[in-house]
C-alpha cells in the first residue's frame, strides 16, 4: 500500500492538486508514525512499563485511521495488537471485533480475537444462561467470504452452462446430470449466502458491546437493583445491547441472561460506516 500511496501522492502533487496530495499523505504519515511507535514498543518489550506507552500511542493512531480511512483487516489487526500490548484489553477486543464485523472470514482476526479473549477472566457460570464466555462465531460466516461465494457460484454456473448447452445441442448422456449438479450447487450457494446474510443482520440487530471495566450486571437500571448474577462481568466481556435508558444499557449475555450495566462501563461503539468499498483477500 505504501508504494501506491507514495505514487498517488506524488502524482497528485505533480499535477498541482495539493488537497489530494495532502489527503493521500495524511494516512501515510499516520501509518509511518504508528509503525514507528509500534517499533519503539517492540524494542522496549523487555520492560512492560516503558513499552506500553509506545504501544498506546500506536494504538491511538491506528484508531484514528480506522475512524477516518479505508478499513482493512490488517488495520484492524494492527489496531487490536497495539491495544493489547498497551494493556488495553477491552479496546483490543473491540478492535478485533470491529474488523470481524467487516471481514468475518479473516482467519488472522479470528485467531487474534481468540487470544485476546484468553486474557479475559471469565467467571465460572453457575447456570447456563449466566454464561459470559462468548459463543464461537457462526461457522459459515466465519469461513466463507463473498469471494468464496462468487467462486463457488461461478463454478456451479459453469457446470450448469455446459450441462444445459450440451443437453440442448449434442444431447450427451452426461449433460443432464452435469446441469443438475450445477443447479444444486447454485442452490447451495444461495442457501449459504442467505444464511450468512441472516447472521450478519442478526449481528447488526444486537450490536456487541465490550466492557471497559469490571461491572455488576443488575436487574434494573440503577444501583439500587440487585445483581443479576453473583460474579461481576469481567473487563473485556462481550455483551449484546438491547436498549438504553438513563445512562444504563440493557444487555444480553452470551448465555441469554438479560440485565443492566452502566453506560460508562462499556466502550463506546465504533461509528458505523457503510460497507467497505474495498475488499482485501485473506
Amino acid at each position, binding site marked *: *500500500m*505504501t508504494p*501506491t500511496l507514495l505514487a498517488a501522492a506524488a502524482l497528485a502533487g505533480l499535477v498541482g492538486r495539493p488537497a489530494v496530495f495532502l489527503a493521500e499523505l495524511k494516512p501515510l504519515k499516520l501509518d509511518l508514525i504508528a*509503525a514507528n511507535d*509500534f517499533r519503539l514498543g*517492540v524494542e522496549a*518489550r*523487555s*520492560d*512492560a*512499563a*516503558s*513499552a*506500553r506507552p509506545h504501544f498506546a500511542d500506536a494504538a491511538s493512531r491506528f484508531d484514528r485511521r480506522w475512524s477516518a480511512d*479505508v478499513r*482493512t*483487516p*490488517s*488495520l484492524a*489487526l*494492527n489496531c487490536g*495488537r497495539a491495544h*493489547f*500490548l498497551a494493556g488495553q484489553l477491552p479496546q483490543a477486543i473491540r478492535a478485533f471485533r470491529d474488523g470481524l464485523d467487516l471481514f468475518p472470514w479473516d482467519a*488472522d482476526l479470528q485467531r*487474534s480475537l481468540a*487470544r485476546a479473549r484468553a486474557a479475559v477472566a471469565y467467571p465460572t457460570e453457575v447456570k447456563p444462561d449466566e454464561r459470559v464466555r462468548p459463543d464461537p462465531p457462526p461457522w459459515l460466516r466465519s469461513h466463507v467470504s*463473498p*469471494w468464496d*461465494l*462468487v467462486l*463457488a*457460484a*461461478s463454478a*456451479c*454456473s*459453469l457446470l*450448469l*452452462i455446459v450441462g*444445459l*448447452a450440451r443437453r*440442448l*445441442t*449434442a*444431447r450427451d448422456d452426461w449433460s443432464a446430470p452435469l446441469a443438475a449438479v450445477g443447479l444444486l450447487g*447454485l442452490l447451495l*450457494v*444461495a442457501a449459504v*449466502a442467505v444464511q450468512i*446474510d441472516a447472521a450478519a443482520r442478526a449481528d447488526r440487530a444486537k450490536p456487541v458491546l465490550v466492557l471497559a471495566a469490571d461491572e455488576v450486571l443488575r436487574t434494573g437500571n440503577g444501583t439500587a437493583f440487585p445483581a443479576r448474577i453473583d460474579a461481576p462481568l469481567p473487563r473485556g466481556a462481550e455483551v449484546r445491547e438491547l436498549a438504553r435508558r438513563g445512562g444504563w444499557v440493557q444487555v444480553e449475555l452470551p448465555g441469554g441472561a438479560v440485565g443492566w450495566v452502566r453506560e460508562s462501563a462499556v466502550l463506546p461503539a465504533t461509528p458505523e460506516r457503510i*460497507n*467497505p*468499498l*474495498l*475488499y*482485501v*483477500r485473506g
Partner: protein
Amino acid sequence: MSRTGSRTRRAGGVSPLSVFPAQGADAPRSGLILLLLLTAISSAPAQDRRPSVDDLPPIERQANDFYNALATGPRGVEVAWSVDPPTVPVNGELTLTLTVRHAANPHELARPDLRKLAAFTKRFQILDRTDPPAAPDAAEARFTYGLRPRSADVKDIPPLKYVYFRKVGDDWRPFTAYAASVPVTVTAAAAKPTPAAPPVPLDAPEEFFTLAEEREPTANPGRFGWLLPVAAVPVAVVVWVTVWRWLFPDAVRLARLRRNRAARLALDRLKKARAAADPAGAAAAAFRGYLAARFGMSPAAQTPAEVVAALAAVECPADRAADAEAFLRACDAARFTGATGDGPALVLEAESLIVAWEGVGE
C-alpha cells in the same frame, strides 16, 4: 502599673532640685533657668534609654502569652505568621515564621514555645529551630519554627495570642495582639520512593509483536456478487447453442433426429458400437433394432434376406429395403472376412441411412 511607671521615672532621671539648693532673692530666676537647663541635660539620657522587661514588676511578667514584648509607640506591637511553603505533604516540613514588629525591646523578646500550645501540637509536630538574637535597635524580630503536619486534615496555622505591655502615661498596661491564622494545604503523603522493581517483560502472544502487512485491496463483490455468474448462465447457454448450430449444421440435424425415440436409441447404440470389439456386428444389430422399432419389422429377421423379406411384409419401400440389405451384407462381409477396419465406416453409414430415412435436413 503605676509602680512600674514610677520605677521607670526613678531609674530614668535625676531631680535637679535635689542637686541645686535655693540661693538668695535673685536665685529664683537664675535658678529656674539652671533648673530647665539641668532638666534638659538630665532628661536626654532618659529618652534614649530603651525600656526593658525589667521595668515591669515580676508579677506582670508572669502574665499568660507574654513574651517580654514592650511597646512605647501608639501603634503597639504587631505580630504575623508567614509560612513557607504553603502546600506541604503529610509528614513534610514547613517553615513557620513569627514576625514581631514595633517592639521596643526586640533583643529581649522570648521565643513563644509552640510545644506548649495545644492548638499547634494537635496539628503539627514541632521541630527544633534556633534563631539569632535580634539587635536592640532592630525594627522587627523573627522566630522560625519547623512544623510537620500530622494529617491531611490540617487546614491552617492557628492564630497566636501575643500579650505585650505598652506605656500609657506613666503606666505599663497590657495589650493583646494576634498573629492571624494562615491557611496551609496539606496533601496526601508523598509516596515513598520504592526500590526500583526489576523490569517485567511484556507478556503477549509472539505474533502480536509484529505489524500485519497491508494487503492490496480489491473490489468487494458485495452481498449479492455471487448472483452475477448465475445471471450469466442463460446468456452463455444461448450463445453456446447458437454458435454450435452455426459450426455444426449436421449435428443439428442429428440432434433433431434424436427426438425420435427409435432413431435416438439406434444412434446411441451406434455410438457405442464404435468402441465395441465387433463394430460391424454391433452396427448391424443397432440397425436391425432401428428397423424393428421404426417400421415394425419382425425382430426374428436376422440375415439380410430375412430382413428384406420382413421389410417387404411391413410394406417398407423397396429402395430402403435394398439399402438395408446392402448395409447388412456389408456388415456380414466385414465380420466374416475379418475386415475389422471397416467397422467405424459401417457405423457412419448406418447413421447416414437413418438420417436420410428420417428426412432430417430435407
